[in-house]
């Protein structure tokens, strides 16, 4: 399967495809709760945030949606969380925590999947380096 070739961890951890492929949005937008835009510096990016692909700018971008850096990935009552992935010090991907403890990722222009946090670690996205949270939206 194409996904498992790209993400070998998906062959070792259970995952579920939860959407058809679409180019309407990407991982950063999806994690930020947006499903009609493709968020990336140089594509669409909050005006108040610098366009360099740095961890600081991604934290600020998620900050425009109310997210703040937190201690770790563990679920916290009343909060939703995001994991930011980096490869070689450059942000590559974000996933959001689902109520059932799995993580939800939009894979570029491909599918949404539900997966374990470790399942996407590897050459494509690197690994999670930072976690953010915000109070659950009413």
């Amino acid at each position, binding site marked *: 399967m194409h996904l498992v070739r790209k993400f070998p961890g998906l062959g070792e951890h259970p995952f579920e495809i939860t959407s058809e492929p679409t180019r309407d949005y*990407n991982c950063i*937008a999806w994690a930020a709760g947006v499903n009609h835009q*493709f968020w990336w510096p140089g594509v669409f990016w909050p005006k108040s945030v610098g366009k360099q692909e740095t961890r600081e700018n991604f934290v600020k971008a998620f900050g425009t949606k109310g997210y703040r850096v937190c201690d770790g990935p563990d679920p916290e009552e009343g909060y939703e969380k995001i994991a930011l992935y980096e490869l070689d010090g450059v942000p590559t991907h974000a996933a959001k925590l689902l109520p059932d403890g799995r993580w939800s990722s939009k894979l*570029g222009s491909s599918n949404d999947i539900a997966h374990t946090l470790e399942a996407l670690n590897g050459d494509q996205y690197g690994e999670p380096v930072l976690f953010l949270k915000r109070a659950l939206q009413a």
Partner: protein
Amino acid sequence: MASSAHTLTPYVGWPDDPPSTSLQIDTMLRDISGIAEANLRTIGRTIEAVRVKPLFDREAFIQHYNAWLEASCFDSLPVHMRNHDSYRAIVQMGERIVPAIAAELRRNPSFLFLALEDITGHDPVPEDAYGNLKATVDAWLAWLRK
């Protein structure tokens, strides 16, 4: 180069009325082709040598495009999308490939618009279309029609 010493055969089969049936058209084209080949032989040329070459290799473009789509489908980073041999091969085809890119984008919007940026040096996408692939591609197609 043809010399005036050569005796070439003119085509004398032009009908008074344009050919209207496929048989008439086929016959006319066959006759013209035969005379053209004979005249080329007379001046030491071959039909292959004078055949107009296509502006670009469409098959190569489609192969590169499909390879790039597959390789970049999990990427969000434009720099990663651009950092692919097939993407670079498409950009190196230059302005002659722009109509083929436009045709592909019209059929199926994709990040191939990045190649239009790199080939033309323009970015006609209005700010309110940023992040919206369909609106981005529409802006490019409108710009290319001008």
